[in-house]
């Protein structure tokens, strides 16, 4: 049983978890760094405890500090949110060893699903199509041989990576040979592991992911898909569902295959399977995320299911409590990530005081954010200020509601990407549902902003 949870994260997701705890009647303690002393989750929590300085390595990434905070505040569980320690199997194991519940997959499940390369093999064996790729790369000669077999262009990917960090696309053997040592040192610096593998590069692809939830007793459901094709440098900025890239039959088949495969492979708790979908509608599995994701509200708006509450209940050992037949996909939802960054200047991240904040409302509008008027955006963490999510019966109305909500949203004092979202909602590739993952980088944010200004 879980009655008091330590939230070991910050920003909007800490607040989102706090809200789920309140809904479930669970007490919530927020663990915060010195830089987040005045953030909304810290102020609203049942109790808040400072676990370290602004430097995340000594606070949000410090497993001993987080576990110690849970023990001294009398918590019986830890929710890691996303990022930081959320998919660290050694952390999950240490949490369990201290008699606490880790809100997420059990450590042995995290361990089994930790290596992307091994997971692709595991889930391919359970029926998921994968992009032609290599095993872990050895020396240069072996890497070149593998690349020749996979076929150029290829993407060099760190096995321990995430969030698009450290990935490079190369078009020839000469480029590959030059970039390999750089990729290795980057991967070692970023993830402490320099294992690399290759994947065929799909030129114009969509990013479609399937949300799943599997309980401790092997009962699993999918909660349909999300389309996250609007990206800049492999970072998602806008997500929607249903995916405009897929037919109803194609979506259903992909989602059903995904949940069958992860249940068979022994996955547990909420998770997301990411796929690339090529121009012909073929889906290839790329990786699984063993955590709650930033874009989970898109699914919550469509299904009415509280994913964070589901995650907590599964971790507490409760049965799922609903079946696939209970999971409806009603209407259309779009999420806009509101980042403190300047799309007109290379997405340069910003910090400073939010002088004024006006949040939008109205039917089908949700705004998840830890920000408030007078809030100081610290410079130490990611640039996510909040998420605007809109729902409507159809995609057209959802876009109209998105425009209305973005027009109401005012953030003064800190530069944001709100103008880019407005521009995207005017852009033909988006309106026609044919945005691909490389489009924003290829065309450039400035071009979208300028086109929107010309009207």
């Amino acid at each position, binding site marked *: 049983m879980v009655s008091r949870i330590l939230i070991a994260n910050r920003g909007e997701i800490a607040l989102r978890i706090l809200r789920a705890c309140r809904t479930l009647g669970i007490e919530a303690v927020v663990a915060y760094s*010195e830089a987040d002393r005045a953030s909304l989750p810290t102020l609203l929590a*049942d109790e808040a405890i400072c676990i370290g300085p602004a430097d995340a390595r000594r606070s949000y990434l410090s497993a001993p500090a987080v576990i110690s905070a849970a*023990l001294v505040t009398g918590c019986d569980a830890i929710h890691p949110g996303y990022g930081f320690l959320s998919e660290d199997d050694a952390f999950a194991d240490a949490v369990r060893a201290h008699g606490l519940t880790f809100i997420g997959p059990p450590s042995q499940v995290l361990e089994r699903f930790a290596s992307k390369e091994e997971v692709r093999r595991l889930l391919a064996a359970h029926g998921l199509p994968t992009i032609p790729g290599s095993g872990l790369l050895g020396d240069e000669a072996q890497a070149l041989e593998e690349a020749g077999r996979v076929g150029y262009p290829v993407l060099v990917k760190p096995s321990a990576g995430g969030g698009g960090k450290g990935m490079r696309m190369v078009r020839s053997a000469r480029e590959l040979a030059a970039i390999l040592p750089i990729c290795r040192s980057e991967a070692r610096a970023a993830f402490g592991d320099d294992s690399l593998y290759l994947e065929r590069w799909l030129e114009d692809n969509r990013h479609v992911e399937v949300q799943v939830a599997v309980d401790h007793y092997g009962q699993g459901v999918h909660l349909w898909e999300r389309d996250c094709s609007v990206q800049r440098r492999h970072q998602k900025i806008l997500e929607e569902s249903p995916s405009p890239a897929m037919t109803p039959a194609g979506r259903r088949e992909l989602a059903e295959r995904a949940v069958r495969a992860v249940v068979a492979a022994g996955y547990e708790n909420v998770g997301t399977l990411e796929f690339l979908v090529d121009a012909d509608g073929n889906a290839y599995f790329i990786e699984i995320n063993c955590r709650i994701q930033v874009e989970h509200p898109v699914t919550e708006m469509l299904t009415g299911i509280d994913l964070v509450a589901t995650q907590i209940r599964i971790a507490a050992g409760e049965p799922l409590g609903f079946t696939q037949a209970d999971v409806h996909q009603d209407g259309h939802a779009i999420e806009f990530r509101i980042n403190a960054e300047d799309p007109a200047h290379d997405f340069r991240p910003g910090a400073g005081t939010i002088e004024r904040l006006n949040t939008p409302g109205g039917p089908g509008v949700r705004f998840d954010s830890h920000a408030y008027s007078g809030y100081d955006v610290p410079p130490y963490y990611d640039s996510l200020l909040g998420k605007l999510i809109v729902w409507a019966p159809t995609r057209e109305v959802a876009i109209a509601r998105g425009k209305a909500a973005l027009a109401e949203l005012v953030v003064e004092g800190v530069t944001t990407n709100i103008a880019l979202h407005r521009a995207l909602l005017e852009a033909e590739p988006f309106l026609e549902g044919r945005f691909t993952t490389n489009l924003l980088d290829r065309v450039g944010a400035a071009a979208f902003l300028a086109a929107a200004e010309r009207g």
Partner: protein
Amino acid sequence: MPDQQRPSDRTASQRAADHAGIDRLADALVPALVAKLGTASLGEVEIREGDWHVRVRRPAGAGARRDRPHRAALPIVAPSGASSPAQAAAPGNPTGPRQEAALSPTVGMFKPGVLAGTRVRSGDRIATVDLLGIALDVVAPFDGVVLEVYPQAGDGVEYGEEIALVQADAPTADGAEEG
């Protein structure tokens, strides 16, 4: 805790008046507030009287903090608008020698070291905080005397929490003009 303040810069007569006020509040008001907190669905009750406010916060749950004498479980009494101890201890403080709190280096369980009244040198261990079995030192910020140690053995303390108040040795000839 950011909302806990210790009036360390007051004169003896001010302190006597303060203590009388605190006693009045503790005898008359606090039991009533605690009773109210027990029946209402409130997490926290605060009242003001004169220069003082009293805040009573419900202990958020089981665990080490339930027994904490100086934090969430018990009333926190502080003079309105009193400066924080760190500010009160500024070198320019005209009322006496410099005072500063020794801070917890981590989040964990408090283990006492020296007693109040002990002379310490800068960097000396005053107490330790246990981080999952690793004892980390709470150190004296400068040469002086430990005036007070706030937590009790076994209390949970957070990173940066004030653990002990240290008063610097009498100012040297150089520092005298500051005082």
